[in-house]
C-alpha cells in the first residue's frame, strides 16, 4: 500500500507528498517531519506571504477600473463566474426542455392539420392544410436540431480552449514525429529540412495567425451551417500546431540520431527490415526524449493558444480575457486574474499529464520533473 502510494506520487510528480505517506506508515519520524517542513510547510508559508504581499500591494495601486483586486476579491470573482456557469447550465437544460416541447407542438399541429384535411367539409382547404402540415413537420425537425443559443459560460470557454489545444497538438505531433524520425535516420534529409526548422522555429505565433486566418478563410469554404468545425476553431488549432511542431520535431530527430549504436547493430545482425527496425528498435529507444519534446510542445501550444484567441477573437479563454478587458467594468481586473490563474493551473496540469506519460514510457527513472 505504502509503496503503491509512493510510486503513484513519484509517477505524477507530486513526490513532495512522499514524506507524508512515510510518516503515516511510521517510518523514521524526525526525518520525515524535517522533510515535510522543507517540502510542504515552507512552500505553504511562502504562498501565504505571497498572498499577504499581494493584499497589501493591491490596496496601494489605483487604476481606472478601481483598486487592484486582492486575493479575496479574485476568489469572489471566481465564484461568481462559477455561479454564472451553473446558471448557464440551467438555462441550457431549460432550453432543451422547451425545444422538445416546441417539437411536440409542431408534430401535434401537423397531425391535427392532416386530420382536418381528411374531413370532407375541409375539401376547399385540403391542399393548403396538407402543405402546412408538411411545413410543420419541417419546423419540427428543424427545431429538433437546434442548439442552445446563449453565450458560453466560463467553463465552456475552458473546454473550448482545451479541445483546440489538443487538436493542434495532435496535428503537430502527427507531422513532427514522422519528420523527426526521418531526420534522425537520414543525415541528408536532416540537412534539407534543417534550414526550415532554424528559420521557422523562432517565429512568434502571432505572426503565423494572420496568415493562417487568411488561408483558412480562403480554403475552408464549406457553408458555416453545415461545416463540422468552425473556421475560428481551425485557425486557432493550426496556429497552435505550427508553433508546437518544433520542439517535438527537434527532440525526435535528436533522439533517433543518438540511439545507442549497439541497438542498431543488433538490428543489423537480426536482419530486421526497415519498418520493423523503426517500430521495434528506433521508436522504443527514442521515446523518452521524444516525450520531452512533446511535453515542451504542449506547453508552447497552450501559451500560443491563449495569445491566438486573444488576437483573433476565437472562442476560448483568450477571448474571455479580451472581452473582460473590453468591458472595462469594476469587475474587469478580478475576472482577468481568475483567468490568469485558470490558465496557469491548466498549463501546470497539462504538464503533469505529459510527465506521467513520459515516465510510463521511460526505461529508467532518471527523467524527472
Amino acid at each position, binding site marked *: 500500500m505504502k509503496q503503491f502510494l509512493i510510486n503513484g506520487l513519484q509517477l505524477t510528480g507530486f513526490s513532495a507528498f512522499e514524506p507524508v505517506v512515510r510518516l503515516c506508515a511510521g517510518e523514521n519520524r524526525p526525518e520525515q517531519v524535517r522533510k515535510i517542513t522543507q517540502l510542504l510547510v515552507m512552500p505553504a508559508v511562502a504562498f501565504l506571504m505571497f498572498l499577504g504581499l499581494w493584499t497589501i500591494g493591491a490596496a496601494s495601486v489605483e487604476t*481606472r477600473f478601481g483598486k487592484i483586486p486582492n486575493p479575496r476579491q479574485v476568489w469572489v470573482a471566481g465564484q461568481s463566474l462559477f455561479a*454564472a456557469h451553473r446558471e448557464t447550465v440551467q438555462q441550457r437544460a431549460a432550453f432543451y426542455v422547451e425545444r422538445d416541447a416546441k417539437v411536440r407542438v409542431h408534430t401535434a*399541429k401537423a397531425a*391535427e*392539420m392532416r*386530420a*382536418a*384535411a381528411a*374531413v370532407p*367539409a*375541409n375539401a*376547399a*382547404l385540403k391542399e*393548403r*392544410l396538407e402543405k*402546412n402540415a408538411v*411545413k410543420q413537420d419541417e*419546423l419540427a425537425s*428543424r*427545431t429538433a436540431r*437546434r*442548439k442552445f*443559443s*446563449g*453565450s458560453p459560460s466560463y467553463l465552456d470557454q475552458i473546454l473550448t480552449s482545451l479541445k483546440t489545444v489538443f487538436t493542434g497538438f495532435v496535428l503537430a505531433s502527427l507531422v513532427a514525429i514522422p519528420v523527426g524520425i526521418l531526420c534522425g535516420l537520414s543525415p541528408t534529409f536532416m540537412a534539407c529540412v534543417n534550414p526550415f526548422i532554424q528559420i521557422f522555429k523562432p517565429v512568434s505565433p502571432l505572426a503565423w495567425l494572420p496568415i493562417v486566418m487568411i488561408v483558412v*478563410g480562403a480554403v475552408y469554404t464549406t*457553408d*458555416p*451551417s453545415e461545416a463540422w468545425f*468552425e*473556421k*475560428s476553431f481551425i485557425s486557432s488549432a493550426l496556429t497552435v500546431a505550427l508553433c508546437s511542431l518544433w520542439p517535438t520535431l527537434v527532440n525526435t530527430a535528436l533522439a533517433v540520431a543518438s540511439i545507442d549504436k549497439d541497438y542498431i547493430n543488433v538490428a543489423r545482425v537480426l536482419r530486421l527490415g526497415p519498418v520493423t527496425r523503426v517500430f521495434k528498435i528506433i521508436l522504443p529507444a527514442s521515446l523518452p526524449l521524444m516525450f520531452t519534446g512533446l511535453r515542451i510542445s504542449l506547453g508552447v501550444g497552450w501559451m500560443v493558444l491563449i495569445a491566438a484567441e486573444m488576437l*483573433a*477573437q476565437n472562442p476560448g479563454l483568450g477571448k474571455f480575457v*479580451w*472581452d*473582460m*478587458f*473590453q*468591458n*472595462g*467594468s*469594476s*469587475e474587469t481586473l478580478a*475576472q482577468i486574474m481568475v483567468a490568469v490563474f485558470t490558465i496557469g493551473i491548466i498549463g501546470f496540469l497539462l504538464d503533469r499529464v505529459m510527465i506521467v506519460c513520459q515516465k510510463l514510457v521511460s526505461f529508467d527513472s532518471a527523467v524527472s520533473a
Partner: protein
Amino acid sequence: MPDSPFLLTAWSRVVLCCGVLAAAVGCGGSTAATPAPSASRTAAVGDAAALLAKEQLDLEKDELKLGFIKLTDCAPIVIAKELGYFDDEGLSVTVEAQANWKILLDRVISGELDGAHMLAGQPIAATVGFGTKAHIVTAFSMDLNGNGITVSKSVWQQMQEADPKLDSPTPPHPITAAALKVVADRQKAAGDPLKLGMVFPVSTHNYELRYWLAAAGIHPGFYTADDTRGVIDGDVLISVTPPPQMPATLEAGTIQGYCVGEPWNQQAVMRDIGVCVVTDSEIWKNNPEKVFGVTKEWAGKHPQTHLAVVKALIRAGKWLDAVDEKGEFLNRKRACEILARKDYVGADYDVIANSMTGTFLFQSTDRQEQKDFNVFFEGFATYPYYSDCIWYLTQMRRWGQIDEPRDDAWYHETAKSIYLPEIYRQAAQLLVDEGQLTTDDVPWDTDGYKSATSEFIDGMEFNGRRPREYLAKFPIGRKD
C-alpha cells in the same frame, strides 16, 4: 413571388374568412356566432382555419449568429434576443461580441456571422470599395446619435485659456472646435500635431470628428487612393483606436482627444481623465449612427429570415424608446441592466445608464439633459433613408475616400443598392397586421429622402437630393 409576405398575410386572411364562412355554413340553422363546440365536425373546419391563420414566415434558416461591438447602441440586437422577439419569429439567435469593426466585417463577409451591428459607413464603404470590398446591404437603422468627442484634461485647460467662456463649471453648449484651433495651431507650429482618435476609417465618428474640426477651420486631412491614412494636408493627426481602448489610450497620452460611442466618453469623464466637449447630436441633430448589415448574397438567399430579423429589431427599437405619459423612458433602466451583463457591453450599470437614461455628463460639474442622446425608434429612427446613406457618401468624397468626382445620379443609385427600405416596410406591415406596431410608427409616404435640414453645428443645409451642391458649399474638403 408567391411567398411574398404581403400575399401571405392577405392569403391567410382569405383563408380565415373562408374558414369562418365554412363554419357558418356548417352550422346550418343554429346561430352562426356561437363558438364552435370541440370534437364536432364544424369545429374541425373552424380549427382548420385557425391552424392556418397563425402562419409564421417561411424561414430559410432559423439558427443565426449575429455579431456586435461592445457599445450601448448594440441594444436593439441584445434586447430582441433577451426579450424573446427573435424567438417569436421562430429564430434561434446567438449574439457574439467582436474585437473590432474589421473583424466583424470580415466575419460577416466570410459567412461566420449572418449579420451584425455595423457602423453606418461600413456597408457603404464596403460596397463602393473603400477598404474591404463586398456588397453589404441594410434594411434597418439601429439608432440615431450616441457619440461624443472627448479631449484630455490638459487640452481642455488649454481650450479654456483660449476661450474664457469655457472656463466655467457649466460652459455654454454646444462647444465648437474654435478654442481647439488655437491648441492645434500651436502644436502644429511646434512640430508635434494634435493627435486624435476615432474608431474606424469609415465610422460615423471619423466623419463627425472631421466635420466638427473643419467647421472651426481645422483641416482634418485628406485620403487619397494611394494614401489611406487620411492625414494629407491635415492640421491634426487622426488615427484609429478601438472603442474600448480609447480611455486607456487617452490616459497614456498616445492621443489627446477622441470621438467614440458610449460608454467610452462617460467612462473617461467618470475616471476623470478627460472632458467631453460635444455630442454628435449637437454636431448634426439626429444623425444616423449604426445599422444592421448583412451581405447582399445572404439577403438574397434568406429573404424571409431577413424579414423576420428586421421585425424583431423593429420591436426591440420600439421597446427601447417607449415612454410613459410624462415622457420618461419606461424600459431604459431594464435595458441598461441587460447591457451591463458581462457577455454584452459589460461596463458598470452606472456608466451605461449615464447616457441611456436621458442625461449626459460632459464633466463632473456639468450634467445636461440629453433626451435624444440615444434614439432607437422615435422620429422613424430605424427607417433606412436613402438620404442618410447619401450624407455618408458625400463625406467620403469630401475627405477623399471616394477618390474621383461623381455625379448626383451615382449617389442616388449607390444609396438604392445599399439601403433597402422596401424590406423594412414589409416587416413593418407584418408587425402592423400583428398589432405590434401602429400605422403612424412608419413613414409610409416617404420617398426615402428626409427633408432638407440645417441642424448642423455650422448651420450648413443638407439636402439628400442634391449631394454635389452640398459638397460645393464647404470651405474645407473636396468640392466635387
